[in-house]
């Protein structure tokens, strides 16, 4: 018995290799993140050092000061970009979740005419590169008169084939018995959706939230193409403009480094937050 326990405690060479390889892989994958943090605190001479150094030698918050100074002197205040970004991201996230889950529920669990056709159209639209649709998008936004409105930011990302596609796969795994039990219990179609389907889809919703957040938060396309008024543009556009266009390329570098970190942090937070949720719900959902 004791011998057996001792044997269990022994780690096999395979496990050692596995842990080493994965640790190395994880370390390699985290390099860009470390770089972003380190870069933001580099003084100007280190930013332009050749060959470049990976880690900062003399950390300073000077970059952030320059960025704040620049932002407070700009025609449109920094906070306006931030407000636009937050508003657009939260509205988009909310509407993408509502639209995609509803569409996916119906596509996964109901029978109706042309269902196969609709599903294959959604799959087909997954294959288009984003660049190919920017001209039609512009025409639509322009035609609807949505230039310089928040809806112009939101509409292009509203129909998310990736989200619908993922959710259809997920929701179709929810047993039909549950829905039938709910029907007998007296739930309406909307009741089944909100009380049963939506709570059970939380892992998938968390995943599409991460994807949608990252796309929308970093998106400059809507600001560049559909927004002519500076006051309607979003944070990523502002950060981009520090490096290109009107500004001095060299002078902009330190601000860009600081802004790069600031704009990356929400991404990181959202990811960590939702990723834990994904695991949690997968463990406790009890679907399997």
């Amino acid at each position, binding site marked *: 018995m004791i011998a057996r326990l001792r044997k269990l405690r022994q780690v096999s060479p395979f496990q050692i290799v596995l842990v080493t390889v994965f640790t190395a892989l994880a370390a390699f994958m985290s390099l860009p993140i470390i770089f972003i943090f380190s870069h933001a605190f580099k003084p100007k001479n280190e930013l332009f050092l050749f060959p470049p150094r990976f880690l900062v030698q003399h950390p300073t918050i000077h970059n952030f000061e320059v960025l704040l100074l620049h932002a407070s002197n700009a025609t449109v205040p920094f906070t306006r970009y931030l407000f636009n970004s937050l508003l657009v991201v939260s509205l988009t996230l909310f509407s993408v979740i509502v639209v995609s889950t509803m569409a996916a529920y119906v596509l996964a669990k109901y029978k109706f005419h042309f269902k196969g056709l609709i599903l294959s159209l959604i799959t087909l639209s997954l294959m288009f590169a984003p660049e190919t649709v920017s001209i039609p998008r512009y025409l639509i936004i322009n035609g609807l008169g949505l230039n310089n409105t928040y809806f112009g930011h939101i509409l292009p990302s509203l129909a998310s084939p990736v989200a619908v596609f993922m959710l259809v796969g997920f929701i179709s795994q929810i047993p039909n*018995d549950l829905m039938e039990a709910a029907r*007998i*219990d*007296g739930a309406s179609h909307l009741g089944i959706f909100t009380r049963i389907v939506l*709570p059970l889809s939380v892992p998938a919703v968390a995943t599409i939230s991460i994807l949608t957040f990252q796309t929308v938060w970093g998106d400059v396309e809507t600001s560049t193409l559909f927004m002519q008024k500076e006051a309607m543009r979003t944070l990523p556009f502002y950060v981009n403009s520090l490096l290109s266009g009107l500004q001095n390329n060299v002078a902009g570098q330190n601000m860009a480094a600081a802004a790069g970190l600031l704009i990356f942090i929400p991404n990181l937070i959202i990811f960590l937050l939702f990723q834990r949720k994904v695991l949690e719900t997968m463990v406790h*959902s*009890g679907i399997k």
Partner: protein
Amino acid sequence: MGSISFNHVFKRYKGESRPAVNDFHLTIDEGEFLVLVGPSGCGKSTTLRMLAGLEEISSGELYLDGKFINYVSPKDRDIAMVFQNYALYPNLSVQENIALGLKLRKTAKHEIDSRVKRVAGILEISHLLERKPSQLSGGQKQRVALGRAIAREPQVFLMDEPLSNLDAKLRSQTRAELIKLQQDLKRTTVYVTHDQVEAMTMGSRIVVMKDGIIQQVAPPRQLYDEPANVFVAGFIGSPQMNFMNGTVEVSDGNYYFSNKRMRVPLSGEQGLRFQRLSGLTHNIILGIRPEHVLIKRGSYEKDDDYIPGVVQMTEQTGADSYVYVELGKIRLIVRTAPEVLYEQGELVSVNLQMNKLHFFDEATEMAIGRDEA
């Protein structure tokens, strides 16, 4: 309260020539425990789902308490259903699972609380109310599913193989509890199973189905003693009834069943059944249950009552032993006391208890005589 009437109900699926449920015509009385039993694909679950309102009825009418309910939605039928896989909402606690049906029906909160408490008390799950379904064992889930149905206090309970996911011991225990519960609540219950033991022990009346068609509707005892056809005779009872083909002939006014292996005289009453049929010889299937066959050691060639045979194998169950005897090409299962051990290849003699014979027409496979007698 809770009487159900099926009036020539059919269910046809697109692209299938044979109806899944074929002319289901039956009245279920108030408070009855009706069991639908049959092999998989016999239409028993479809029938239950039509009653629940989860499947459309292709033709025919369905009445609950005399009210036409073909097009009434499931939530307005005043029924509750227990599913095979329990179908507990994984995102809700046990308490919320039981309460959801009441909540959706806008029951007052204090009423919900008291009903949930009472149901949990009856089913002994009071200590589990805060747990999520994933933290429950199979038996506990089963109770919660049952509790969800009971809390609603519906007119009719529908159960779709609710015990099939439990292990054998728990199954027989829960079976007994279900019977008691039904007797206490006195609610009409329609129970679907493929297990004939469950059907026999639970049902006050049993419906045997095959290929969407009702084969027989009868109380358990009658179903066992007087099966309407070969299918029912073979389906009910374990090990299954022994069948052998042969003919019934008349000689000197007496009736005999005979085939290559045996010639058995029939009693006067049994002969009468054949008298009513036209013709002198009838091709029939003779059926006899394993417990109605007597077995003796050794061969008694000269004795008219005993037929010689060879033991092929023996199965011990503890309480009984089943001896497989070969009579030429006929294979007979005999249920006997476990004390006497029969060896493989041993010569034995078997005797069929004459008053326990079942006769079926070879062409139609229907029972001969009994009903009309």
